[in-house]
């Protein structure tokens, strides 16, 4: 598209461009400028800056001249034996937490979509975990899981299910799963609300027709609800996958990456390398790889869903 006048345009049009159109364009530019500055400042500048830093061997937060190393920080990521375990933890965390949040989110949304008494109250209640800051949520669950005086052991003991004090954050794999539970508790709310919004767009006529055709509740769910929820599922799946892949704060608060580095994720590892070890060049390369991975994930989702003609995104 071009706003430039055609070469054959009459002189009158040329004058119009020279005054009115240009004035309009300048006005539009002036209106866009604040947003452009914000976007440049908080998105583009850090993105470009991080990329530049990833090409240098930056080992201090202070400005200075550091050796240019090209892509060797990126190559180092793949040679780093510490990277693969944290990548494994991140993939496991992303897969399990997103799947659990989606399954639970759909179930709770169906429940909240049913004609319940005081539905507004239940809907408000569900949003509470999501409204809680992640740092608070992490501290809360750290106390719940405490092996000495934690509420979970107390509950199991009160219900006479187990009197032994379990160390919920005591072994690497169990700790990773318990952090996932805390994450699911907090983030299922947002899935519920996306799905609930989707459910409300499905006409009740469809269910009525299905019922008349002899379909049961189960068949209606698989044949009507789920396919029509696909756009909502697509959006929430992308959002949650990206968020889960970047997980940092809940890990920082609940386990500090332990025990035995069993809950370290890529974002946490990146933080350690950049800030604790002052390997800013290497940390920047790791951060860029996270961005690329998240971008690839989002593309895969959109493609799969578009191919299935379910996403409703053209």
């Amino acid at each position: 598209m071009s706003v430039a006048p055609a070469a054959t345009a009459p002189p009158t049009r040329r004058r119009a461009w020279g005054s009115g159109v240009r004035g309009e364009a300048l006005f539009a530019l002036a209106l866009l400028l604040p947003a452009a500055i914000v976007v440049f400042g908080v998105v583009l500048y850090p993105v470009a800056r991080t990329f530049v830093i990833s090409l240098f061997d930056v080992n201090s937060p202070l400005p200075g001249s550091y050796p240019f190393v090209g892509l060797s920080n990126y190559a180092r990521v793949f040679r780093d034996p510490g990277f693969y375990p944290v990548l494994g933890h991140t993939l496991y965390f992303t897969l399990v937490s997103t799947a659990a949040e989606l399954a639970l989110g759909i179930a709770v949304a169906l429940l909240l979509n049913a004609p319940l008494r005081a539905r507004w109250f239940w809907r408000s209640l569900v949003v509470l975990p999501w409204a809680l800051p992640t740092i608070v949520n992490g501290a809360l669950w750290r106390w719940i899981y405490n092996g000495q005086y934690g509420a979970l052991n107390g509950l199991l003991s009160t219900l006479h299910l187990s009197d032994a004090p379990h160390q919920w954050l005591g072994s690497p794999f169990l700790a990773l799963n318990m952090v996932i539970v805390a994450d699911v508790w907090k983030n299922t709310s947002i899935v519920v609300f996306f799905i609930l919004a989707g459910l409300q767009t499905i006409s009740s006529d469809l269910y009525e027709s299905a019922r008349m055709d002899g379909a049961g509740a189960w068949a209606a769910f698989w044949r009507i609800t789920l396919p029509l929820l696909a756009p909502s599922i697509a959006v929430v799946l992308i959002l949650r996958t990206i968020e889960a892949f970047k997980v940092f704060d809940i890990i920082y608060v609940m386990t500090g990456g332990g025990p035995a580095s069993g809950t370290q994720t890529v974002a946490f590892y990146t933080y350690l390398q950049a800030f604790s070890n002052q390997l800013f060049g290497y940390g920047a390369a790791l951060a860029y790889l996270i961005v690329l991975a998240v971008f690839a994930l989002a593309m895969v989702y959109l493609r799969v869903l578009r191919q299935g003609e379910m996403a409703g995104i053209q």
Partner: protein
Amino acid sequence: MSATPSPRTVPAPTATPSRRAVLAAGGGVGLAAFLSSCAVGGGGSSAGASGSGKGKVRALFMKQAGYSETDIRAMTTAFQKANPDIAVTADFVAYEALHDKIVAAAPAATYDVVLIDVIWPAEFGSKHIVADVTSKWPEPWKQQMLGGAVATPQFDSRFYGVPWILDTKYLFFNAAHLAKAKVDAGQLQSWDGVLKAARAVKSAGVVKYPLVWSWQQAEALICDYAKLLGAFGGTFLDAAGKPAFQHGGGVQALELMRQSIVDGLSNPTSTQSLEEDVRRVFSAGQASMALNWTYMYGMANDPKQSQVGGQVKVLQTPSGPNGRPGVNGSMALAVSAQSKNQDAAWKYITYLTSQPVQEKYALSSLPVWKASYDNPAVVKTNPAVVPQAKKQLADLILRPQVKTYNPISQALQAEIQKALLGSKSAQQALNDAADQAATLLGS
């Protein structure tokens, strides 16, 4: 939109450039300017300045162990009264966030004064994050301060701060628990005796786990390991500066730690605990013995904060076959190298570290000044800890003073935890940690 413009849209040579062309050119010029002009590594200026000795000073402290936030605010108020032309703002973070906060704040020169741990002068000094204050250090201080204190802010014979919190871990025990189990406190002088006492307390049913430690994957774990390493004759590095903790005493120390968990003497929550968790468990009467910093004595004996108030006693760290060194857990106040008000910052530091101020708050943290330990007023402030401190502070083990301490410590923490959780033998875990440490030392 087509990438190939149609003849109709090709701008005439005299026409105003298209919007796309303007944006592309602007973006290109901007990006080029950005790439060419910016220094890599952070914003801001790297040059600090002495300043006028007046004005605003912002300081960063930690919010645990040592002096409390209330103590520091009271000290600051008194300083401002004496120096009305200096306005101090004090910020507090958890110890675990302190290092990273100092690093992140350095380019913007947010802080004029920062509290640094004994393990950071090599890193912060060599990277010009804190200022070299060697020329400002009065010569007599070297004799007037305790040896462990003088070593705290030093790296390569240069001073990067003034020692302020002189601390090591002591052995705290619950006298009532030991009495119930008929254990003589005299046997707590050695690690063998401590384990024997723990077995007696456990079998008498006084508590399920007599020992609790700060063995979370954090620096606290290395502090506990350092004491045992020293007691069993190990060292972090050998004379050539290569990892040595995987030999002899280093392995024995870790084996003792692991065995105490296997035998049910150490609380299994230890691997998820920091010093504050240790204090809570001990203060709740759920442990009989624990290593911790000086501050625990006051808090665990305070009935308002503890269920075992009045029952807590303190001893020097127990001995092993090679003695009883305490871990040097001291901290120093440093002037930020980027600070534009370094003279005022130095005034504030010299006030906080002065003998009268340190003696006034001796219950929270013991002074760095030798003479304070003979001052009856100081002894009276903390009569239980001072006699132990006098012996312990003369015998300290330092963690490696190397620029890459942080990643080495992280590797060691992870491998020690693997041994504690039983997924590796002590020897294997330390061998693996030593391999990683050797690479980091060579990098």
